[in-house]
């Protein structure tokens, strides 16, 4: 027998004392309230703190939330109805809002307008009548509408003066108020692509994740499918899909159907990215550890691998929403997307499709402003979310 064994003989009492009372870390090293607040905060709370630090992202988030709330009540926000035509004010430039008339404060107002036809060029010229003060009304009665097609109403946030006009963004070739049409157009432009993106996102993560993690035959097949789908440019697909949708469907429904199908097709980019990242990540030691502990592959992908590149997924998601909005404008421009009388920002921009319009009626380009703002906002929001996605950095 080896008498030098460090272990005591069986049954003999231990040489040192071990307290069986639970050990409280705080008793040794107490944390200040601020410290404990940080260390005990949940992951979601940490994310929020980190997100809040990115000012631009926070502002963008609020801006987008306001816009999405705004499309719920655009009947109320818009000064005119979508299809209200003012035949006396065709191609009228935007009116300026004034506060002072002859040095006297009268509150926000616009001057009345008079149209003079230039007999040489047949161009309509509008002149402000300096004595015709038209005060803008707030929370007033104007065009009557059916709120969401259900409830009758005629209240508006702003209206023109009685028997007056208010075209803050000018009018188009039918004398319709551009500002009102931009507000109504937001409803379709902001919502139409969301479902398709949802589909492509789920498909991309699931299929790309499985292919990257399992490899083998499944990976091979998925790779070939992705190759096939990616090699077809989207515009021919749109043309073909638009042609086979049932004629009885409304333009919006057809467009919606196409975006859903495109969502089912466009998961490939994300799937490839997920796959290539997983191929590298799955060789990490912590994955081996999880496998040895008997975790299933879906658990390893979900719990250990996807959080590893969540930031990239979020960046992709936020950048694909503006992609859909831009896609809508481009397709409407080609006449493949939505069609009038449906109103979206893309449809409004088709009015400004020639150089002569830009030269004579530049205000018809105004719908580009909300497009740019929304796309910038989504991008900044995505940046903020990306930085917040991994709060332990």
């Amino acid at each position, binding site marked *: 027998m080896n008498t030098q064994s460090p272990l005591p003989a069986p049954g003999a009492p231990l040489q040192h004392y071990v307290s069986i009372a639970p050990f409280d870390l705080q008793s040794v090293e107490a944390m200040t309230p601020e410290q404990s607040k940080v260390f005990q905060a949940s992951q979601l709370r940490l994310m929020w703190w980190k997100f809040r630090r990115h000012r631009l992202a926070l502002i963008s988030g609020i801006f987008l939330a306001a816009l999405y709330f705004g499309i719920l009540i655009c009947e109320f926000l818009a000064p005119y109805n979508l299809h209200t035509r003012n035949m006396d004010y065709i191609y009228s430039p935007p009116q300026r809002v004034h506060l002072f008339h002859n040095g006297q404060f009268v509150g926000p107002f616009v001057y009345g307008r008079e149209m003079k036809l230039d007999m040489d060029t047949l161009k309509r010229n509008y002149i402000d009548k300096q004595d015709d003060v038209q005060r803008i009304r707030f929370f007033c009665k104007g065009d009557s509408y059916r709120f969401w097609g259900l409830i009758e109403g005629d209240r508006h946030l702003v209206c023109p003066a009685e028997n007056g006009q208010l075209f803050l963004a000018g009018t188009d070739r039918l004398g319709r108020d551009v500002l009102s049409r931009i507000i109504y157009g937001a409803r379709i432009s902001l919502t139409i692509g969301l479902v398709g993106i949802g589909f492509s996102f789920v498909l991309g993560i699931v299929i790309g994740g499985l292919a990257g993690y399992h490899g083998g035959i499944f990976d091979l097949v998925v790779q070939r499918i992705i190759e096939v789908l990616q090699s077809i440019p989207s515009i021919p697909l749109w*043309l073909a899909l638009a042609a086979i949708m049932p004629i009885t469907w409304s333009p919006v429904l057809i467009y919606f159907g196409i975006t859903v199908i495109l969502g089912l097709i466009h998961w490939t980019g994300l799937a490839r990215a997920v796959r290539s990242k997983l191929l590298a990540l799955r060789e990490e030691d912590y994955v081996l550890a999880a496998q040895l502990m008997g975790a299933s592959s879906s658990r390893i992908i979900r719990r250990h691998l996807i959080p590893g590149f969540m930031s990239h997924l979020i960046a992709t998601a936020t950048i694909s929403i503006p992609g859909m909005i831009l896609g809508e404008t481009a397709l409407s421009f080609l006449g493949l997307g939505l069609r009038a009388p449906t109103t979206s920002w893309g449809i409004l921009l088709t009015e400004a499709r020639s150089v002569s319009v830009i030269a004579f009626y530049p205000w018809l380009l105004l719908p580009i402003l909300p497009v740019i703002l929304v796309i910038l906002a989504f991008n900044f929001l995505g940046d903020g979310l990306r930085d917040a996605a991994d709060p332990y950095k």
Partner: protein
Amino acid sequence: MLRYIAWRIAVMVPTLLIISALVFTIIELPPGDYFDSYVSELRAQGEAVDSDRIQMMRKEYGFDKPPVIRYFYWVGGMLHGDFGYSFEYELPVRDVVGDRMWLTVLVSFVTIIFTWLIAFPIGMYSATHQYSWGDYGLTFFGLLGLAIPNFMLALILMYFANIWFGTSIGHLMDQQYLGEPMSWAKAKSILAHLWIPVLIIGTGGTASMIRRLRANLLDELHKQYVVTARAKGLHPFKALVKYPLRMALNFFISDIGSILPAIISGAEITAIVLSLETTGPMLIRALQSQDMYLAGSFLMFLAFLTVIGVLISDLALALLDPRIRLQGGSTK
């Protein structure tokens, strides 16, 4: 490695076959064929329709046969270089396409290079100077390029070019060179026109590339090996380029394959606005009038380029990151 490349090239054949079937289906999907739209167009113009002639043409081009048989004719023809006949131009597809194919490749290639030249330095600067004014400013300009729809940018540039230079910036070359054989003057004219479409098409892609490079580089820069490298006295530039940048490039490489169809799709609308002599406007016109062999050849050509692109991206990915296994063998 060589075995892998050979095997990948062998796999390309069935892939291309599947793509050809898919392309054919897409072109066949819309109801009716070219002759239907041709007849209705003639009727709309009030012209008499010679139905015997239409029937004869139908028969000649095999439109009386079921689509499956026509598909095999089409694929068989392409295998020995016969891309079919364009009904609208009444010429073989190869003659119609002419210059357009390589002009498209030229525009796309220059655009990709332009995008990379802009995006790489900006992305690296933004990642290393996170939250600085330079980062905000450069990112903002990149995003602005993304946010303005391409066709609007094209229109606005056209307008200002007209005012400032008094010239029209449309087209890819001066009109007298159209259909001319290649010459120095023609090449110079193309180069002089090329920058506008490249600028317009490129601005859209630059922003997303800057963002992705910045995002991936930031992920890498926070890792400990970068700190170690810096602590050991590696020059900051080397500590940036040698390891983190290489890691952040994974996404670029895996995107090579998909960039091409994306750029060509994006370029189609710009090409229409600027009336460029590329394949885009012709493809859309052919699809709308169901000039199917013309459209089909374009699509197959694109598909071929993409398949090659994917092959290159897979090989480059394996070269760049040794951790990636070529065969994608299953895990333990």
